[in-house]
């Protein structure tokens, strides 16, 4: 099940999730259970469902922030195990996260916040040197990433002085600098008015297409999911209840592979 136009030789999936169960610390029961799906390289997927459906839990498990209770996750064929620190860091280099609350470090300049995306591939010494003594080519890379979100002029500003919308775009630039294979965006339009929401989703779609990066984006609104994403995963009560691919983006109504909502474990409908 790949979106039209997405090429992946041999059809090997980028991400494979099998029968995943996750129970966040402090939760009485798993908030994500029996979830299975796979994702092709460069594919864009919306993850929809009401609050508490388990979308955030799933995203956090995907980048190894939460350990899996059962089942398995594999990125490009490699299994994800949060208990192995080196393996976890290697995984996280490949997956960029755009957090819901942007989560910039206010005291640092925008340039440092953006280049934080490169920390996974930089040595510790280089990371410390960049804090006090950034080189021109590094700043150029930061500016280039910021230009793609139209914030090149704010390179030197302190992150704390930015508006919420600007902070979000800096968080997006940070994800670009990471040069990931997959971007996880957690409710990027949750607190935005409709016009701004369209702007952010258009930006994410364009950037993901340009860079050939796969994107999973959790959303509240099914209509936005249908408009911007060829494929939609729907969650409810911790389970995947629907996985549909829209034949054309403009056609928001028709689905060509809809699984009726059910309580059955997992909703397998993928190309694996």
């Amino acid at each position, binding site marked *: 099940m790949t979106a039209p136009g997405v090429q992946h030789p041999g059809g090997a999936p980028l991400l494979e999730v099998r029968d995943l169960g996750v129970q966040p610390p402090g939760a009485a029961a798993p908030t994500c259970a029996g979830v299975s799906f796979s994702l092709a390289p460069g594919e864009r997927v919306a993850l929809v469902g009401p609050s508490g459906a388990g979308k955030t839990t799933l995203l956090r498990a995907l980048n190894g922030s939460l350990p899996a209770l059962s089942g398995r996750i594999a990125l490009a064929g490699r299994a994800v195990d949060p208990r192995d620190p080196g393996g976890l860091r*290697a995984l996280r280099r490949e997956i960029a996260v755009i*957090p819901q609350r942007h*989560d910039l470090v206010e005291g*640092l300049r925008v340039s440092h916040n953006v280049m*934080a995306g490169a920390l996974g591939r930089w040595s*510790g010494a280089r990371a*410390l040197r960049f804090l006090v003594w950034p080189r021109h080519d590094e700043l150029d890379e930061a500016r280039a990433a910021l230009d793609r979100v139209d914030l090149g002029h704010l390179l030197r500003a302190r992150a704390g002085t930015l508006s919420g919308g600007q902070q979000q775009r800096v968080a997006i630039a940070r994800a670009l600098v990471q040069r990931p294979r997959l971007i996880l965006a957690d409710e990027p339009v949750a607190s935005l008015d409709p016009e701004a929401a369209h702007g952010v989703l258009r930006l994410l779609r364009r950037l993901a297409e340009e860079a050939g990066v796969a994107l999973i984006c959790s959303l509240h609104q099914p209509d936005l999911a249908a408009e911007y994403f060829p494929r939609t995963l729907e969650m409810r009560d911790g389970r995947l209840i629907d996985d549909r691919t829209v034949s054309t983006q403009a056609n928001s109504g028709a689905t060509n592979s809809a699984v009726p909502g059910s309580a059955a474990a997992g909703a397998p409908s993928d190309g694996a």
Partner: protein
Amino acid sequence: MDGLASTLGFIAGFFPPDLSPAYLLALAGPVLETLGMTFGAMLLASVLSLPVGLYLGLGGPGAGVVRAVLSGVRAIPDLTLAILCVIFFGIGPGAGLTAIAVFYTAAMSKNFGDLFATAPPGPVAALRATGARPVAVALYALVPLKSRDLLTYASYEVECALRASVIIGAVGGGGLGAELVGTLNAFDFQRSTTLILVLIVLVAAIDQITLRLRARPVWLLALVPPSALALWLYLPAAPGLGFALQTVGGMFPPQLDAGDWAALPALIWETVRIAVLGTALGAALALPMGLASTRGLSPAILAVPVRRLLEALRAVPEVVFGLILVATAGVGPTAGILALGLHSGGCLGRLFAESFENVRPGPVQAVAATGARPLTVAAYATAPLALGPLAVHTLFRLEWNLRQATVVGMIGAGGIGQALFQAQQLFFYQKMMAYLLITWVLVLLVDRASAWTRRRAGWMELAPEEMAAG
């Protein structure tokens, strides 16, 4: 090399501590005296400061004046108060108890007033609207609304008072401090070590007890009967007061001769230097130790021993470090700088670690999610996020150390405090009073400057234990 060898020789002289049962048994007396002084004084201070705090909280007529007077008393270093009390009431726990009671009455009244002023306005206004008298408003709204805060805050103060009552012994206030000075003067250093260990254990025990009390502050009231007994035993008798007034008369007018005036700027500069360098040393020690003891950043195998070390440094007051350093390294400002630095390192180390632990988790997780190493995460998220609190804590410690620099001076660590103590020892009371007033004005100026800076920078939040006195 020689200096290092002799320093190591001195340190070796403190070991092993004298842990013979006979000596430990003999220490029961001084320990009880110190505890009695602390709890008796705190009972008196609580009883006196509750009505004053309520008066301030309700904004009665002249509240501003009362507040200014309290700030003034609070700015007199506790050791200075103790010296005055020893002059008035003679050597012994009575003098120590009075000094602590006066200092903490001023401190607690002011902070109780601040607590009452922040009571939720709704219930208070509702009660006032019924036409209730201020006393009724206090009893039916302010005290119940704030009782938990009051008890929590008082439990912090008990800890501080215990440390204060130990050091007050150093100038004649009795208890463990008097015993410590005795062993140092007799070059009986192994027993000095024993006393420091006893002090660390005592502070740790009080720490644990007050920690549990803060979960259930009502149990604090169980301390009232023994405290009342101690108060009854130690409170100086009324005849002492007549003598005290007479002695105070002899201190006026304060006077310095021409030579003293000429030497004054150098003395003040030395005190400021002790405070600034002591704070810098403390912060320099605290940064690596704070990072090493931060939960979630540092492995337990490193964090736990460092945390114990910080506790030990905190448990030994500046003056006790000062007494030891003056006895071993000699009289002078170096002893003062080291004394302030070691204790500040312990206090700041814990506060730094807490600041690192309390940063917003979101940005830290966001940086960690890029696959960055733990040290890089600390440099790009934890440290920049904690910079504000770190600066607040260090600034507050500097303010505190400016006060303490005069105090350690009084036991021979240089600066204006040393001049004050010498004048007292030689019975030059007019000169002593002059130095006391100068010290007091200095501390008041520092208080004002620090409060102004914090207000400007928007750094108003302090941990309760910092509010409680350091």
